[in-house]
């Protein structure tokens, strides 16, 4: 049903509708609520846990079941580069850039070394 949708003008419309109905309203809600509620409240702690788990699950899905060019890279290399990225991040006093670029560089280097 959704075959080819991402490349079509109908896809543009779907993107716009989902953004305006399912995404942007949360920004408006935050604007409306303003400072009237406590950002540290329980409901937000739960919301953050749900969003965090969802994105963490998305990450492992992208790494373990990639599509396209990344699928050509052996699993061992993907996992090593991922672990190395976390290691570099922690080892550089939590420098996000060092972790992200270091990880991608290691993925690249290992592909050439393993050839």
């Amino acid at each position, binding site marked *: 049903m959704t075959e080819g949708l991402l490349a079509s003008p109908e896809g*543009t419309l779907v993107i716009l509708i*989902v953004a305006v109905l399912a995404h942007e309203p949360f920004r408006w809600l935050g604007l409306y609520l303003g400072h009237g509620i406590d950002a540290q409240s329980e409901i937000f702690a739960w919301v953050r846990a749900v969003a965090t788990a969802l994105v963490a699950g998305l990450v492992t899905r992208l790494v373990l079941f990639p599509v396209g060019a990344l699928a050509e890279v052996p699993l061992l290399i993907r996992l090593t580069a991922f672990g190395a990225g976390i290691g570099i991040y922690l080892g550089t006093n939590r420098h*996000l850039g060092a972790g992200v670029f270091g990880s991608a560089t290691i993925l690249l280097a290992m592909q050439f070394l393993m050839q």
Partner: protein
Amino acid sequence: MLVALSTPGAILMASSAGFGALANDAGMSLFNAIFMMGVFFALPAQVVMMDQLARGGSIIGGALAVALTGVRLVPMMVTIMPLLVRPPAALSRRLAAAHFVAITAWLEGLRILPHLAKHRRMTCFLGIGTGMVGATLVGTSLGFELAESVPQAFSAGLLFLTPIYFFLSLMAAARLTMDWLAIVVGAFLGPVFYVLTPGLDLLFTGLIGGTAAYVAGRRFDGILEEEE
């Protein structure tokens, strides 16, 4: 505008290049990729939606997962808006500022704004946001085009930017025990639900994993408090 050239700007550009490469990989048109970057301006929601549709999932399922990632924007808005709306700003400026609120602009806003005079904050934040959106649109186009023209090993590297950037951002934002639990539980449940319930896997991972992390995290904090 110089903020777009700083470290967060560079990361944002690279991660949006990763998104552009993913979009190309998922069979998206360049126009739709750039359009999506602009109207969402929140990479997790974009990747969720795109990945869902690319794997043949339903639009409704994708929209629900998008909404679950979008709820986290509410507390971000609630914490940054008090810095921006005194003195009161026009609704159009507030809506524009709201659109720029996503993890990177939010972190930069919280870091920079308190050091500025109150009347300059809104204008400055709109500048930061505009610069960041501009950087991501350029980054998306670059990633999209590069993914096609560079050797396979390089486009794999581009595609790898998204997951590692997301994961390290989660680690950077984690404060409570439950945040760390949510990262670990979500990372394990993601692939499990992907195999068991494809299409609904992200919804289940978020709701079940996040709730479990919340409950366990609260218990754990409770135990610590009792011991003290």
